[in-house]
């Protein structure tokens, strides 16, 4: 694994760049918005990006070590992938949340609350609506983490004695 770190480093940088893009793009959009203190949201988005990148690295890393041949590690990989999807999802949702040109909200704060998309914004509204249900992604993620740990315990996983890592 001599060449590894450089490749890894390049990919990591690339991933970070992607993450930054995701954060910077909304900024351009919100530039028109009147938002008193946007730092909180930015920090939150950056944290999501960071989380996402680290999960990507974890997946890459698990695959490179061929650990995914073991079911326990494979579950961990799935967990990481779900977390990645979840991160993308939440970032997307956070991004849309600030926009007021997508839909109208009725009966906000009640059980009868509903969304009314503006004409021509149906698709985005739909995407936002589905994205809002982010637990559909993060629950499987943590479930896989749980399964992974359980599997590692069950099989009494031992690391190979000497790994050429």
């Amino acid at each position, binding site marked *: 694994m001599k060449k590894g770190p450089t490749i*890894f480093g390049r990919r990591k940088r690339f991933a970070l760049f992607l993450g930054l893009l995701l954060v910077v793009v909304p900024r351009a959009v919100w530039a028109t918005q009147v938002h008193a203190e946007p730092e*909180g949201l930015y*920090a*939150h988005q950056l*944290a*999501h990006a*960071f*989380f996402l*990148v*680290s*999960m990507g*690295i*974890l997946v890459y*890393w698990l695959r490179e*070590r061929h650990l995914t041949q073991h079911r326990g590690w494979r579950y961990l990989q799935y967990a990481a992938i779900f977390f990645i999807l979840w991160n993308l999802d939440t970032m997307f949702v956070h991004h849309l949340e600030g926009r007021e040109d997508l*839909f109208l*909200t*009725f009966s906000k*704060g*009640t*059980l*009868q*609350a*509903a*969304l*009314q*998309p503006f004409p021509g914004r*149906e698709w985005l*509204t*739909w995407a936002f*609506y589905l994205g*809002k*249900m*982010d*637990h*559909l992604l*993060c*629950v499987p993620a*943590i*479930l896989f*983490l*749980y399964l992974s*740990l*359980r599997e*590692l*315990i069950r099989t*009494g996983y*031992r*690391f190979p*004695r*000497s*790994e050429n*890592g």
Partner: protein
Amino acid sequence: MQLPFWPVLLVDLLGSALMIVFSILCVRLSFQLRSQDRENVVWTYLLMVSHALTAFAVSRGVGHIAKELLILGDRPDIWAALRPYSGSINTITFCVVGAVTLFFERIWRVYQQVLRDKEALQEAHEKLLFMNKHLEDLVLERTQELARSEGKYRRIFEVSRDMIAVVDAGGTLLDINPAGREMLGIPHHLTGRESALPDFGSFFARREDWDRLRERILRDCYVSDAEVDLVAADGREVNVLLSAASECEVSRKTEIFHFVVKDISQRKAMQQQLLQADKLASIGQLAAGIAHEINNPLGIILGYTQLLIREEPEGTERYEDLKTIERHSRTCKTIVEDLLSFSRRAHTKKETASLHETIEEVLSVVRHNLELDQIQVEKDFDPAVPLLVLDKDKMRQVFMNLIMNAKQAIGKDGWIRVETRFDPGRRQIRVAVRDNGCGIKPGDLPRIFDPFFTTKGTGEGTGLGLSVSYGIVKNHAGDILVESQVGEGSTFTVVLPVENEDEENAGT
């Protein structure tokens, strides 16, 4: 089209609850994992991730549940107050999970290194333990191996027919093998340990030989095939071929010489004999040529002399002169005949005969003569001696010569012993004629078989006796050997081969 918000709320509430439950379960499991293998930092990592995720799940889950409930419960103001905390905690937990994961790779590498080091340490430790435990066995094994090797070389040392000697630079014998002891006549009870062994240099016939040899070894580190004369402790002179190598022994801080010494006396003697035989053969050829030419004129001289004597009345001066001529011509003729028989030109008539009878005949002729000089004759005949095919007359001449020589060497008062021995192994008969006469000087020894070599005055000996005998014995495919010690006596040994098994019936 309106999208109802309640499914989102439901998923949010349920999902948050599930997140909390599973993250707590994850923490429990990772604790369990870690307790399985405490040293493994990867488990520690998973534990950390689980903790961070739990923190995240709880903060977010609780936040979301609270948010929904507060908003539904119409208290958005409280939520507005809580919201920044919930959001910040969420952000921090993401960062923690991300950071921990990014470090995972490093941790893993470090962990692998630790594992490798641990393994190496373990291995070294085990090796040490093994060595410790088996040191005694190993030493024993090595010792046995050494002993075996030592035994092997010892055997070479012990059974070698050549002398092997270890000598220090000063010349002190440190060790010498049995062959060497025998060669030098060193008693077996002397060992190098008490340094009771004599000085090696003292065995050299010429001390300067030893000094020169030492110098050469010290200079070149070896000497090969040097021919030197050694003198054994009992005075025996031994011709040897000597090879030596030096070795620097650090512990003693001196050079050690290793000698391999081969006794070549035998070979030397043989060479001498060959030389002798060669010389005699050429002299024989020369003599035979002359003898043959002289024989005829001599016969004519003798014939005419006898003719003249017959015509001359006895008692006159002329008669006496002619008699003198006749006598001397006869002597010449005998000499010539002797020469001829030495060179084997003369005809031989071989027949089966008893050697003992032949010797007895000679003894009966000379006995009276010997008794006059008080010389006793002793016989020691081996009854196993078989009959031989030989020229009786010639053999008689041989023994006559040997016995007369012995008599002349004794002068008056002494003994002559005639021994016969049969060696069935080598199929040969040895007849030894011993006397206690004056002996032969070592310088004369190589020459006594030369024709005309004599130490006796003119008229007494011609110096042909031994050379003629030598020719006769050679003609019988035999050999004559001499041993002599000045002042003590001489032994002439006639060796005759037994050619045919048919004649192997003992005769007296």
